[in-house]
């Protein structure tokens, strides 16, 4: 028990129905650091609650209750971490807490049921959950809000049963239970009238999957504000589709201009893209470090944060860049000192498919329990291109490229070149001997490659471990089921012993 990684029996933190019986002991320095960050998160949330509109919103909306589990959420994602990895994790997750508080504050400020700031609401453009936001880089006087992120997406990661009610509402309404739970929950929330009705107009996109696209169409009937459907090409790797993508982006810009009376500000756009490019350069450095024997920014420390700054941040919020610079410094510090992420690296893994929202801390379990390094995940492997900061025509193509290659969409659409072939390429680049293959029960796009993955992994001599889950619905395959699939493979196929046997079998179905 103490300062060293894997010195604590982490399974003992899970104790029946209670979330945790106590906080983790990480040695004096790390425990003190972790404690101060815990206090900081509480202070951010306390400040949030001090605003009357937010207080109203807290009692009006069912989904707000999930945010009581935020401290536990951060604990889960820092479990077992020490030194630079612990600090990187806090740098990221604490900032996400702050950012989500800001977003919800904006929503409640504009919400007729809470702050009812009509003028502010007229400055809000509502975007889809999975959408890139770079178009808004050209509208400095407007604010973009991804409506579903603080309402459905984040709550489902904070509390595993966070959106089950909404899934049930949608199914009760007649939606088949075999569709992806994410758009199902989003739709359920609309049916339940649990969205703040804000914004001057909305932009929907043909994002990750057929279900997501269809959900938007039905939800739009509830929101009743002018909507633009941004239909960027599906076969995004083909050269012949790029022009259409750029034209659609131009149409979307025109729509926002018409609805808001604003004019697209190219100077501001390019300024934001400079920031975005700087963030991309730093991300590339993290990836390069992960390809070495001393990876630093891996697993949980990439996944959710990459979503946030690549998609939602989009270069508009300079705080992300400042944060990235701090993360990079910590990463280099760890790399130079050859700080390990686990006491013994058994396997280097690429995580492919869609992660379970209710178990985003799964990668950290992989490393703590079995010494499997989750080097990178599919959702984080989005574009690492640098985009134009001077050429307006090229910028339209760049934006289209980003929209086509938004998180998940760039792999779930576009054909087997990006869905299958790229996996093997990344395995080589990251010197991975293992693939953790998430099988999300409702995801048709990736499930369609099941047999191909199996056969091609065998040909390449890679260990492929299937981990089945229900994305936002743990009733279909819970956290324990996910762990059991890895445990079984590690025990029976690889005949290995866990690094921390207390993590092999524990109960957390009643935890947040």
């Amino acid at each position, binding site marked *: 028990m103490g300062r060293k990684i894997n010195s604590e029996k982490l399974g003992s933190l899970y104790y029946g129905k209670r979330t945790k019986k106590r906080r983790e002991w990480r040695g004096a320095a790390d425990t003190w650091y972790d404690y101060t960050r815990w206090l900081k998160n509480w202070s951010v949330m306390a400040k949030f609650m001090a605003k009357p509109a937010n207080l109203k919103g807290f009692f009006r909306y069912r989904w707000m209750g999930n945010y009581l589990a935020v401290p536990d959420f951060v604990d889960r994602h820092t479990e077992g971490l020490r030194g630079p990895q612990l600090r990187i994790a806090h740098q990221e997750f604490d900032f996400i807490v702050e950012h989500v508080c800001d977003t919800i504050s904006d929503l409640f400020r504009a919400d007729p049921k809470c702050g009812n700031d009509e003028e502010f609401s007229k400055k809000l453009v509502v975007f889809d959950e999975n959408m890139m936001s770079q178009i808004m880089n050209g509208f400095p006087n407007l604010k973009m809000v991804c409506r579903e992120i603080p309402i459905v997406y984040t709550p489902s990661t904070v509390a595993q049963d966070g959106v089950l009610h909404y899934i049930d509402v949608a199914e009760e309404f007649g939606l088949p239970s*075999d569709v992806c739970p994410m758009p199902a929950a989003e739709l359920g929330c609309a049916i339940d009238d649990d969205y703040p009705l804000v914004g001057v107009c909305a932009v929907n996109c043909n994002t990750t999957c*057929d279900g997501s696209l269809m959900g938007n169409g039905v939800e*739009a009937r509830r929101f009743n504000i002018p909507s633009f459907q941004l239909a960027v090409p*599906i076969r995004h790797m083909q050269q012949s589709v790029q022009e259409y993508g750029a034209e659609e982006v131009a149409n979307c810009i025109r729509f926002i201009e018409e609805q808001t009376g604003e004019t697209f500000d190219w100077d501001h756009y390019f300024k934001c893209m400079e920031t975005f490019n700087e963030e991309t350069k730093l991300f590339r450095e993290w990836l390069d470090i992960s390809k070495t024997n001393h990876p630093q920014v891996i697993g949980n420390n990439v996944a959710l944060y990459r979503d946030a700054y690549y998609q939602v941040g989009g270069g508009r919020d300079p705080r992300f860049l400042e944060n990235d610079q701090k993360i990079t410094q910590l990463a280099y510090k760890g790399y130079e000192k050859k700080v390990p992420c686990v006491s013994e690296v058994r396997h280097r893994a690429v995580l492919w498919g869609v992660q379970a929202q209710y178990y985003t801390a799964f990668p950290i379990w992989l490393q703590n329990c079995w010494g499997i390094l989750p080097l990178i995940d599919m959702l984080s492997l989005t574009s690492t291109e640098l985009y134009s900061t001077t050429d307006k025509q090229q910028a339209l193509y760049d934006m289209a490229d980003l929209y086509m290659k938004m998180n998940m969409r760039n792999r779930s*659409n576009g054909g087997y070149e990006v869905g299958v072939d790229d996996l093997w390429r990344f395995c080589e680049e990251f010197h991975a001997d293992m693939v953790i293959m998430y099988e999300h029960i409702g995801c048709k796009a990736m*499930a369609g490659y099941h047999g*191909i993955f199996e056969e091609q992994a065998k040909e390449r001599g890679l260990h492929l471990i299937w981990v089945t889950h229900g994305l936002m619905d743990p009733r279909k395959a819970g956290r324990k089921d996910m762990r059991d699939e890895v445990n079984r493979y590690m025990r029976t196929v690889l005949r290995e012993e866990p690094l921390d046997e207390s993590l092999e079998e524990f109960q957390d179905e009643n935890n947040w």
Partner: protein
Amino acid sequence: MKDLKHLYDLEQLLQECNNDLVKEACEKGQIAVGDVCSMIPEVLLNLPGCFSVRLRAPRTGSIEIGTYYMTSLLCEYCRALVERAVEGGYNFLDCIIAPDACAAMNRCVENMELLKTCEKEKFFVTYSDVPMKSDETALKHYVRQMRLRVLEPLHDVYGIDVSDAALLEAVEQHNKVCRLIRELGEFRKEEYPRITGYEFYIFCLATYCCPKDMLLPILEETLEEVREREPDQEKTYRIRVLLAGSEIDDLDFIKLIEDNGALIVADRHCFGSFPGRDEIKICEGEDLLTQICRHYMVTGQCPRFMNTEKVEERKDYADRLAKEYHADGIIYEQMKFCDYWGYERMAASHIMHEEYGYPVLSIDRPYVVGSSGQLRTRVQAFVESVEIKKIQGGR
């Protein structure tokens, strides 16, 4: 009513994808083009020298191989196609021209390609990006994609004539088929229809699965026969329904509905006559390919069209058909695991009932229905409920 002369033969023909008419066309040296979705304009696959076959997997039993490759979570139709492809059932094809329309079908075709299920030397597969909106920007993109992914490969690999004259010839042939099918379908408007929904469906389905030039004489003869046909003197049905939904190529499904007293008077689904058998109207002065693509884009009723106007239009379209064909109710069906139709069916079952006032039966079903007792019960219950409503004056 007296049996139609060609009905039995066509029923038998439709038991095979590689049926006698397809075989005959292949023997004559025509190019067999595998078609998997209405988003690729059918006329482009029926240029002189080639013909389209909409892929089906009739008499499907086990789909274990398809399930291994695509899991049990994907649409059974797509799994059945992969199964049939692995069995060698599509070896007669010279190419498959597919759109990226839905994820399941896209994966289905990709599996067929990666597993090298078709053995012909020059066999190829193309994937096109097809529009999800109906506007001029999308049209330009559509035209370009069709030129690059359909016409050029057919010309380059098999020397198919893709000139305007050839396109026009294909459109004329398509329109002939549409006129015949539409005219046959018109008889379903009668109170004592001279053709049942099942009979009509057999002829309509055949037009998607057989070389059209060989089918034309059969359709012409059948139309004459139906014109002269004496309808039954008593009503053979209890209610009239519009059948709307996803892919249906299962004869038993139609039979099951009609056997339980619901006459299908209008068919708005992927293998149906609405909108697939709408004539293409050509005018002078505009590029022919653009006009063809516009037709498919504007008339398309697939739920993957995401712009608000199209979303609303789909409900109006069903309403118009139901009124025109005097339907008492609407059956919305979907293939299980189809995301597009899962949402569309859910929304339509509420909207068509609450906003348009139709009784709606909403069902999801497997690819092969067989004699499903569960479905039979649901159709029976629906028929009874519509009858009761009629007795109660629509309340």
